[in-house]
């Protein structure tokens, strides 16, 4: 193991690899800052640049783009409530509130620190456990994946607190929206009303831009201009006390992220949502969640980063992409003549361990670059909103167009911008809608496969121990707070009666 680690450091720490890792991280951050362009697009667009490189150098640079873009998405999530990817949606909940309180610098810094710690933890886990964990991931069949998606939706709905019905309503609406287009099982078109653009479904990147970026712009126009945020520099810098306070959240987020990131599919998105949901229940500062709690940024960002690294477990060990970006990277592997799978660890140890160590190096670079830059990025909020929002509208529309080079994307952004505004005005939660939309296609695929495994019956969900265990957790999340709430209420009433008697 130590030999492998040394080999990895020898490979990753050459000047050439370090420079291209830095270039990848910087390009990724810039791409993540642009609405509509997430890590998947970034890696795909910049892939041709690496064709002349050595495979290990190319993969190190592409991996740098991957987590650089994730951090870039975090910057826009915090500063202008515009998540670059679905996995950054929950960061907007507390990150944007922190920004409005003049603490954007601290939010961005804790995101970088959390990501860095998550990278170290996930690197250690990857090195020691990648091959056996890949075997464990194989135990997750359609039934287990379906169960874990149900758990994810339940957690997201349950973190709405008192607004459980409205959270569930929005999650169901997201699932319904995800059914537009060609069905996963049969290939039949649904709810397309003859529109060719709808055949591939409602594009969720454009929906996210509309709901969050334009929805917030319309909302702010209606709320009225506030004074530009003129925070003192010391408020922009994170305090050591805040880092210490966030540490449990970072550790929990890293663990959750790593575990969920290993599962092929929407690992990073589910990981960030679930870690936020759990943190909202267990954190000492849970009452401030949604109002600018630093733990509400630290936890999902750590989970997001750990999941991004863990995505490489099935990719490297099994040749199964963990997510959309790793699917593009898998394509890069084949372009370079590499065959991911169990034999890759034996045949190309310098490449595999060099790549794994480069995650650590890349996150060190991100931390070194972004800790001092976080307050600088945060200065953007000093721009009066009257100047800022026309530019947000411009970049949202252009970014959306560039996703698929189609005006349909722009119309989706505009329509969902209006819907996002209405949802905000009516106090209906947006995060469950996005998760439902993102998970919808995977959910239906798992549903179809589970029913196929069970010869048409979904009862197979209850016969597989892992799936059953996950479903019991989901049911407990719904039932336990209600039962304990009712018991506490009954006890209080009894106490009141005894006092009056």
């Amino acid at each position, binding site marked *: 193991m130590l030999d492998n680690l040394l080999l990895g450091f020898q490979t990753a720490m050459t000047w050439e690899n370090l420079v291209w890792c830095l270039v990848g991280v910087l390009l990724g951050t810039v791409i993540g800052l642009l609405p509509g362009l997430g890590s998947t697009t970034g890696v795909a667009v910049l892939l041709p640049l690496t064709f002349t490189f050595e495979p290990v150098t190319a993969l190190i640079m592409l991996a740098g783009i991957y987590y650089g873009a994730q951090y870039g998405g975090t910057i826009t999530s915090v500063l202008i409530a515009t998540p670059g990817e679905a996995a950054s949606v929950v960061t907007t909940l507390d990150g944007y509130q922190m920004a409005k309180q003049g603490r954007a610098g601290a939010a961005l810094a804790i995101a970088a620190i959390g990501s860095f710690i998550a990278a170290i933890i996930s690197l250690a886990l990857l090195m020691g456990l990648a091959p056996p964990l890949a075997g464990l991931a194989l135990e997750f069949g359609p039934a287990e994946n379906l169960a874990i998606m149900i758990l994810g939706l339940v957690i997201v709905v349950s973190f709405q607190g008192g607004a459980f019905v409205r959270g569930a309503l929005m999650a169901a609406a997201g699932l*319904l929206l995800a*059914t537009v287009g060609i069905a996963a099982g049969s290939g039949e078109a649904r709810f397309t009303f003859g529109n060719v653009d709808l055949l591939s479904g409602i594009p969720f990147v454009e929906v996210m831009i509309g709901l969050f970026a334009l929805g917030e712009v319309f909302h702010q126009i209606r709320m009225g201009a506030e004074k530009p945020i003129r925070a003192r520099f010391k408020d922009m810098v994170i305090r050591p006390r805040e880092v210490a306070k966030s540490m449990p959240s970072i550790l929990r987020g890293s663990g959750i992220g790593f575990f969920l990131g290993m599962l092929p599919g929407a690992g990073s998105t589910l990981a960030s949502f679930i870690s936020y949901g759990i943190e909202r229940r267990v954190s000492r500062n849970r009452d401030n969640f949604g109002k600018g709690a630093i733990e509400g940024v630290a936890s999902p960002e750590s989970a997001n980063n750990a999941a991004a690294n863990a995505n490489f477990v099935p990719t490297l060990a099994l040749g199964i992409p963990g997510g959309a970006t790793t699917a593009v990277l898998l394509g890069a592997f084949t372009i370079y003549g590499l065959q991911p799978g169990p034999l890759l660890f034996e045949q190309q140890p310098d490449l595999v361990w060099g790549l794994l160590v480069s995650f650590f190096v890349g996150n060190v670079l991100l931390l070194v670059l972004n800790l001092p830059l976080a307050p600088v990025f945060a200065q953007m909020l000093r721009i009066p909103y009257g100047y800022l929002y026309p530019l947000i509208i411009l970049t949202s529309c252009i970014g959306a167009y560039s996703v698929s080079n189609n005006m349909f994307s722009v119309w989706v952004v*505009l329509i969902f911008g209006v819907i996002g505004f209405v949802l905000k005005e009516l106090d209906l939660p947006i995060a469950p809608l996005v998760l439902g939309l993102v998970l919808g296609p995977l959910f239906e695929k798992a549903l179809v496969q589970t029913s196929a495994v069970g010869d048409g019956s979904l009862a197979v969900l209850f016969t597989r121990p892992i799936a059953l265990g996950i479903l019991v957790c989901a049911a407990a999340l719904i039932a336990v707070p209600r039962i304990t709430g009712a018991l506490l209420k009954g006890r209080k009433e009894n106490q009141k009666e005894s006092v009056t008697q």
Partner: protein
Amino acid sequence: MTRTLRNARIAASAVLAALGAAACVGGLGYGLENEDGAVGTGLLPAASGALIAVLALVDLAQQLLAARRAPASADADINAANGSGVALLIADGETGGPTDGIDVLGRTPRQRNRNLVVVLALVFAAALLVPFSGLLIAMGLLILAITIGVERMRPLSAVAVTAVALACVWLVFAQGLRVPFPTGMLGLI
């Protein structure tokens, strides 16, 4: 919660219930089961539609019960309990008093509502303009119209902001990322 907001929420719940029911019926039309007994094309739309309809009706019932329990005088208390800052703003808009809810630029809620309508109209008009002018020109005109017409920026500043923003977008997207923007009937950029 003001009466307007409560009515809006009730209307939204009713609309969602109707949409859910329609989706459920549509889903049933696609078929819940395939011939081999496996999950059919219509199961997820029907199930999610039914769930939306039921949850929207529950929400509707909760809203109606809350409306019955809370007379108009208790509006402020309910609003505080719900944690909705938006409701207060709507209340300001309804009263329309000259000093109520004025923002740092001196705009009343009524003016802000008008600005919102204007911005929405401009954004959709710009999108409609794309087949004629192309995307970049339409977006440039949109920024110009918002900065001059809504934000009352000086024309020179507005033109400068628009030109710099468009140049950045053109450099990054059109030149850097090779995004082929539609140039419309004008065929300029």
